[in-house]
């Protein structure tokens, strides 16, 4: 009966969704390569009781203005913001940050490809270079010999072993891919993303060339979550939630008043 009840509810639902997103962003403040997510709202439909510009009875003039009621808001999109996070020095020779555009490709258990910017590498029991979660770089199995004393990542993704006598042996090269619309990537968790029709096909390339980013050894890319921004959003979101609950309460009180209209 009173649309305020329902439009208030749409506002509360939307703000709840926004708070969920903010909490997830804050929970990932320290996640390597994490990209923050933003909630975007649009207004819902409008109910027109009277359209502007329709002729009035005598056909001599038209109505100057309309009468309508808005029906609330809705969440239009949660979009991931792919700006670069801070590059932090870790001192570990197996940590690599991508400075600029690009993702590394890894192979999942089911054989499909996922993409990541998390360059915290480890060595597995066979000496193969793997990511934190144990996934291998696709098309390029880099086995580090046990005799190597150090590993070098060049800015173009070339991985080399350094031996005790200062000689270098190139072990392989990590390729990068780029997407037209990274916002369209599907997040899989574990810092991994999957391509979708919205993200476009991955375009493969060599780091430090054709606009691709470059590898920086001994650094990791932190998340691009800005705690201040998230806290401000959280405050405004909570207040907006409360405001919307007020319109529901008001509508409810008015319905009670309606009930009191008729004396029994």
């Amino acid at each position, binding site marked *: 009966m009173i649309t*305020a009840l329902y439009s208030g509810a749409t506002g509360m639902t939307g703000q709840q969704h926004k708070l969920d997103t903010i909490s997830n962003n804050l929970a990932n403040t320290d996640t390597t390569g994490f990209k923050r997510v933003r909630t975007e709202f649009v207004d819902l439909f409008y109910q027109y009781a009277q359209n502007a510009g329709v002729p009035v009875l005598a056909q001599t003039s038209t109505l100057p203005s309309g009468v309508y009621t808005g029906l609330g808001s809705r969440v239009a999109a949660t979009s991931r913001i792919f700006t670069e996070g801070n590059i932090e020095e870790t001192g570990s020779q197996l940590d690599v940050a991508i400075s600029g555009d690009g993702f590394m490709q890894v192979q999942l258990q089911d054989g499909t490809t996922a993409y990541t910017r998390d360059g915290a590498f480890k060595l597995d029991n066979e000496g193969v270079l793997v990511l934190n979660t144990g996934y291998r770089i696709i098309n390029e199995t880099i086995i580090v010999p046990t005799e190597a004393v150090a590993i070098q990542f060049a800015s173009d993704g070339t991985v080399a072993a350094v031996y005790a006598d200062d000689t270098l042996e190139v072990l392989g090269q990590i390729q990068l891919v780029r997407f037209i619309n990274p916002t369209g990537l599907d997040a899989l968790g574990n810092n991994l993303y999957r391509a979708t029709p919205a993200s476009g096909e991955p375009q493969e390339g060599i780091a430090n060339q054709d606009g691709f980013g470059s590898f920086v050894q001994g650094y990791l890319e932190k998340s691009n979550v800005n705690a201040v921004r998230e806290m401000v959003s959280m405050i405004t979101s909570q207040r907006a939630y409360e405001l919307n609950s007020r319109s529901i309460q008001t509508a409810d009180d008015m319905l009670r008043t309606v009930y009191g209209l008729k004396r029994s």
Partner: protein
Amino acid sequence: MVRGIYTAAMGMLVDQAIVDNASNNLANVDTTGFKRDVQAFRSYLQHEILRIEAKDGRQKRTPLGTLERGVTLDEVRADHTQGAMEMTEVNTDFAIDGDGFFAIQKPNGDVYYTRNGNAKINAQDILVNDQNDPFLNDVGDMIPFSFNTVVDPQGFILQDGVIQGRLGLYSFESVRHLRKVGYTLYQPTTRSGEPQLDTESRIYQGYQEKATVNAINEMVKLIAAQRHFDISQKVVTTEDQLLDAAVNKVGPTR
């Protein structure tokens, strides 16, 4: 005497409309480019009150003033004042400073206008909104866009320093007659006039325009409307009591 009941009831209906409007505004406090709706009311069935007295064997009519017999919602329109700018640092966010609107083309070819500049790049490299409907440039074409495309304050689109066109901004003779269709889109009407290319407004890349909803304003409206609703209810019940007295006490048919 009975007409007071209807007058009070009309007031209550208007209060309901105020609450509906305020709650829609409040639901959209976070909607990019949203313009709050304002309502206007007018008195209904106004008529003249005359004093009639006999003078020199004739009737003399002296006007005493007018009496309104109710109130009704006259118009609802969007208040197109400039919203606050919020820095987002996202290169596909655009905010307009001025009277212009972005043009959005729906799949059926219809063009709608919006102040919501939360754009995306789709898989075809085209600048689109959340619903994959393309933004249009100043000649009505789609806009190819990439992650490093720059839009200057005048709307010129620069790819690697080369001008690729201009983001289309359109203004209307009478913005208040644009029709809201939801999804932050507006549709031109006969009274709003045809869209005119707007070269005065400025575009800010990496910013978004916040909703023009003022929370304090809307809360005050909610409180005032609710209290007025309660008072009007009292008027209705009082009128009812008077009728009760008239029917059951003054003239009971025993």
